[in-house]
């Protein structure tokens, strides 16, 4: 089983890294990070803050773009191009196929985020900044965030065409950065029923703002170690739930 999962993950990894779109996104991310040095000239005295902020934002944004654009095709393309037939005719359960595809894309994203981080940390260091541990922590959190976005993209990819899946995944990503406001709303709303409904929405949708500590990093505010642990547990649990949903949808699907 592990061998089969590894084979599917490796194939997904190869497919992504041999695709031009990954190189294009990577190049744009590097360009955007580099352009932060130009922006920093306009803000006398805050150059390092601008480079840190724009760099982190660029890295998170492009990692999310890659997760969405590669993730939405992961299952759908295999069905559309009929490559999946020869795979599932072999002793490969459908859940293993989904899990293998997920880990393949996560391997791609890990490599991309690592490469972008090396460039970004080099840029910060060049600008004279010290490299606090929280900067590395922020990069790690962006990996946690894309792990959720990838899982959501796989859920949509398991039953919708890429364009719809891209819109839905991007929608979940955007809403995911706003759901943190719902907790405050629950406290203020007088109706208990409405509070329950909003609470339900909060728990169903991902809270992606958890993985954004840019403000703390830029302003050198402390972030506790337990925060990272909680974020990791949340990301792992949400990802597992999303992959379970994808498997449940895909398990009984007729592959016409």
């Amino acid at each position, binding site marked *: 089983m592990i*061998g*089969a999962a*590894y*084979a*599917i993950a*490796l*194939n997904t990894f*190869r*497919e992504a890294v*041999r*695709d031009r779109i990954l190189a294009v996104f990577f190049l744009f991310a590097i360009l955007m990070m580099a352009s932060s040095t130009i922006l920093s000239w306009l803000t006398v005295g805050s150059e390092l803050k601008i480079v840190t902020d724009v760099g982190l934002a660029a890295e998170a944004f492009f990692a999310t773009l890659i997760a969405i654009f590669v993730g939405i095709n992961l299952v759908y393309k295999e069905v559309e*191009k*009929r*490559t999946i*037939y*020869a*795979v*599932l*005719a*072999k*002793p*490969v*359960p459908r859940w293993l196929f989904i899990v293998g595809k997920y880990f393949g894309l996560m391997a791609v994203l890990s490599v991309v985020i690592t490469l972008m981080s090396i460039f970004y940390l080099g840029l910060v260091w060049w600008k004279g900044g010290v490299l606090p541990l929280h900067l590395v922590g922020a990069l790690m959190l962006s990996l946690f965030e894309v792990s959720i976005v990838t899982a959501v993209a796989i859920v949509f990819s398991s039953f919708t065409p890429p364009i719809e899946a891209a819109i839905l995944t991007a929608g979940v990503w955007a809403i995911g950065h706003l759901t943190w406001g719902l907790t405050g709303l629950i406290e203020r709303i007088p109706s208990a029923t409405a509070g329950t409904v909003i609470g339900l929405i909060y728990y169903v949708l991902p809270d992606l703002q958890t993985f954004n500590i840019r403000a703390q990093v830029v302003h050198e505010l402390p972030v506790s170690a337990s925060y990272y642990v909680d974020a990791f547990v949340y990301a792992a649990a949400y990802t597992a739930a999303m992959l379970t949903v994808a498997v449940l949808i895909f398990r*009984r699907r*007729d*592959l*016409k």
Partner: protein
Amino acid sequence: MSILRFHNVEKSLPFGFWLRKREILKGVSLSVEQGEIYGFLGPNGAGKTTAIKCLLGLLYPDAGEIELFGESGPTLAARRRLGYLPERPYFYPHLKGRELLEYFGRLFGMRGAALRKKCDDLLGLVGLPDDGEKLTGQYSKGMLQRLGVAQALINDPDLVILDEPMSGLDPIGRREVKGLIESVKERGATVFFSSHILSDAEALCDRVCLLVDGRLRMEAPLDDLLGERVEYWEVACEGLAVDALSGYQRHAVQGGLSFYRLADEPEVDRWVDAVRQAGGRVYRVAPQRMTLEDYFVAAVQAEGEADAPETTASDTP
């Protein structure tokens, strides 16, 4: 011993904007014996690929049962003994031929030197020993088909399922794939292949079945089906005037030859005597047996007539 059985398998699939269900398989029952080449025949749209997908677990039957190696449905253990070539195979264009075979080998838990050797052997077997390092996106249709056969054999399967293996190939490609199918049988595997190219099925199969409009029309050994029975005799003579043989209806004239179709041997004897008496020369006497194509066309036409709406007196203008 049957290694594959369909028992009253039914399947409907949704089509169109409103996703209306259309019956594709209407109670298909068949059985495949160990060690034979079984031809799963039928016109385009008969439901052959749907049946194969049900057998592989890509589609879930609405009703009926599929038994594979004595197990109910395509379990993981059953699929471990299976090889499958999809119709018009399309493989990952980003992978090289060898990488593709290694990928499929790993899905069976193979690895290391044994896997590499298996890939070498298979690339040699299908005539692609020097193309393993090329991307499959650069392969021709025939090369993809051969690579498809190679991946179907990666696990030394007991049952090989080939969906339209000769479709879209030129005569040389077809001959090569035909040779590969024969070599698979020689290795002791059972071959189940779907086709609408009847000459190929006639040359390869031990048994065939005919699927028309989702229903199995017949299942029989090819010898029983076609047998030795002569349908008619085709005879030809030369050196005679056009009206020299009275009482025989000419079928065709080609060059100096006149062709006739005769019903049985006594009639052939009488025709030979008549030619000689008229001073002509018998050029050819050939018994014509029923071909699979004749059988196929007759069965499909019969199905069409059965499905045609009955004309009643009120329908007639």
